[in-house]
């Protein structure tokens, strides 16, 4: 999928990924994603998580040209995001005909020490 203008605002890039797993998105540190001094803005981390989830969902849908609409998101912030590159990856936990359940995790140096995680429900609309 082509990333939308909002992903460009966050300066997101798509990194290579293992077969079968969703693409990893990388968000460089810039003053444009800063929150309180020294820390990433929670909204930018949330935006990254949502984009990683949407990319994972489009990846799972493949050639199916369905539209996806976000119904809700719940984000847990586990550690402060520091002034460095942040990565995120989504995983589709269930892909139904009308609803998809997607999770996403964001980390910096160590994938096993996530800075935030999200759970999302998407409505799948087919015209």
């Amino acid at each position, binding site marked *: 999928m082509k990333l*939308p*203008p*909002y992903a*460009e*605002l*966050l300066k997101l890039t798509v990194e290579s990924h293992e077969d079968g797993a969703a693409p990893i998105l990388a968000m460089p540190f810039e*003053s*444009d*994603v*800063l*929150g*309180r001094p020294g820390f*990433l*803005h*929670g*909204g*930018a981390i*949330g*935006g*990254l998580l*949502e*984009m990683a989830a949407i990319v994972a969902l489009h990846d799972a849908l493949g050639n199916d040209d369905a539209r996806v*609409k*976000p*119904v*809700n*998101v*719940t*984000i*847990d*912030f586990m550690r*402060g995001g520091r002034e460095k590159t942040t990565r995120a990856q989504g995983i589709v936990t269930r892909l139904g005909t009308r609803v998809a359940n997607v999770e996403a995790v964001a980390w910096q140096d160590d994938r096993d020490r996530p800075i935030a995680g999200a759970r999302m429900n998407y409505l799948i609309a087919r015209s």
Partner: protein
Amino acid sequence: MAGGPTATSDFDPARFFAARSDGHGRRLGIEYHDHGADWAELALPYKPDQIGDPERGVIASGPILTLMDMATSISAWLKRGMFAPQATLDLRIDYLRPATPHRTVIGRGECYRVTRSIAFVRGQAHDGDPDDPLAHVAGTFMLLDMPA
């Protein structure tokens, strides 16, 4: 309740916004709108670089998430009557409908309870009619200046 600083609060969100020079909220164009003793309203004017659905010109959910994180965060400072470090523990948003293209989104955050270490917040976002909200939010902040 009318806006403007209250007698009980030393924290003035309008001055807080005027003083900032960079950061994610400024990059998105988020502005001060109004506030009371335990609530704040911020504005997110429509900009093409917020778009998540290019076909329809609808902004992404991320900018709304940032707007609500900031509005609820400020409501906690207002209720506490001071600016102090706090970290978002969790934030849940229901996206009730897409934002209408070209309209400014108003995000209202309210802090309805503060304990020794946690601020509980909720809020809604609309794009002109408060009775036709586009998002609903609930969340908690960890107060970093207080012992757990």
